[in-house]
């Protein structure tokens, strides 16, 4: 009885050790990988700035071109791309909001060219009510989730933009947004 148990035990140990070593090796190769994907992000139009349930809320339309096919390698399960807006107000030194995101699981789908507009549940808001004339930057970020191993995150900053100085709303915002 013992010999069978010991053999099974040995087999299991070898198998799990081999699997663990392969996983560790795969996870380690991530760190040798670098990519420099081309990304451009431009504000096409400011579509609105309003006061809504005690906060300032802004809408805009952006043009995004990002070719992230470069960031995929054999240990990439998915890339989570997202755009954040960041700004400083008298009330809060750091304000950040995700305004758009996209999950890409296949390399061929990672070439993005699209007109980005803010949609539920993402919204750009400021509880400090001070968006008027405030400078902000847009950031395009991507987080890669591995098949096994560590998560990686990279970012591109597009600084020096300014919110409009008055309340307005154009027809570009669909109802309910």
């Amino acid at each position, binding site marked *: 009885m013992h010999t069978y148990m010991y053999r099974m035990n040995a087999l299991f140990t070898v198998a799990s050790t081999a699997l663990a070593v392969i996983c560790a090796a795969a996870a380690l190769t991530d760190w040798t990988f670098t990519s420099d994907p081309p990304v451009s992000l431009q504000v096409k139009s400011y579509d609105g700035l309003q006061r809504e349930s005690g906060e300032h809320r802004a809408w805009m339309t952006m043009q995004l071109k990002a070719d992230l096919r470069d960031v995929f390698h054999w240990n990439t399960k998915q890339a989570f791309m997202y755009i954040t807006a960041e700004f400083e107000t008298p009330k809060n030194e750091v304000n*950040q909001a995700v305004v758009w995101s996209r999950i890409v699981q296949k390399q061929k789908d990672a070439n993005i060219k699209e007109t980005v507009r803010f949609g539920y549940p993402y919204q750009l808001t400021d509880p400090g009510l001070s968006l008027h004339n405030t400078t902000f930057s847009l950031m395009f970020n991507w987080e890669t989730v591995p098949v096994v191993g560590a998560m990686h995150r990279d970012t591109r900053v597009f600084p020096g933009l300014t919110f409009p100085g008055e309340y307005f709303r154009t027809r570009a915002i669909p109802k309910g947004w």
Partner: protein
Amino acid sequence: MLKGQVKGLLASLGLADMNLRQLLTQGVNLGLIVTTALMIWKGLVLCTGSESPVVVVLSGSMEPAFYRGDILFLNMGRKPFRAGEVVVFNINGRDIPIVHRIIKVHEKEAGTKKSDDVLILTKGDNNWGDDRALYNPGQKWLHRDHLMGRVVGFLPYIGQATIIMNDYPYVKYLLIGILGIFVITSKE
């Protein structure tokens, strides 16, 4: 009489040929294994700064990144929490931590240590709306103290064992029992 009982018990376990000293040694071995596991866990807590450095994904709200049964490694880190990071948080009065992504951050001073000066809103990648419906009634934001760590590492499938043991407790007792007998009866 007691001696006879012990002998009977030992015989039924196939340990009749062991003397008391050997039995005690095995007991000490078992204790060592348990305390080593505890030390590794507490060491991880110390290194990562997170009260629960390894968690199992229990829901599908972060699919397709994390599925039920995947294992996540957490780290608290010194850096302030920023939009886009996947974090684990605990709502007051509920025991099951939630793994979701930060979508809004408002911070009174950059990197402040005051919990209430940090306002955070989260959302699950697979959920349509943000998490305000998940928070306690009337709660609009998470604060620094709600967060248990950010996700830094990923290991698929292994957590299924935990889920099975949680769903069918007798599997857990059976496994612990078998392992315990192995440790006690193994002769080195």
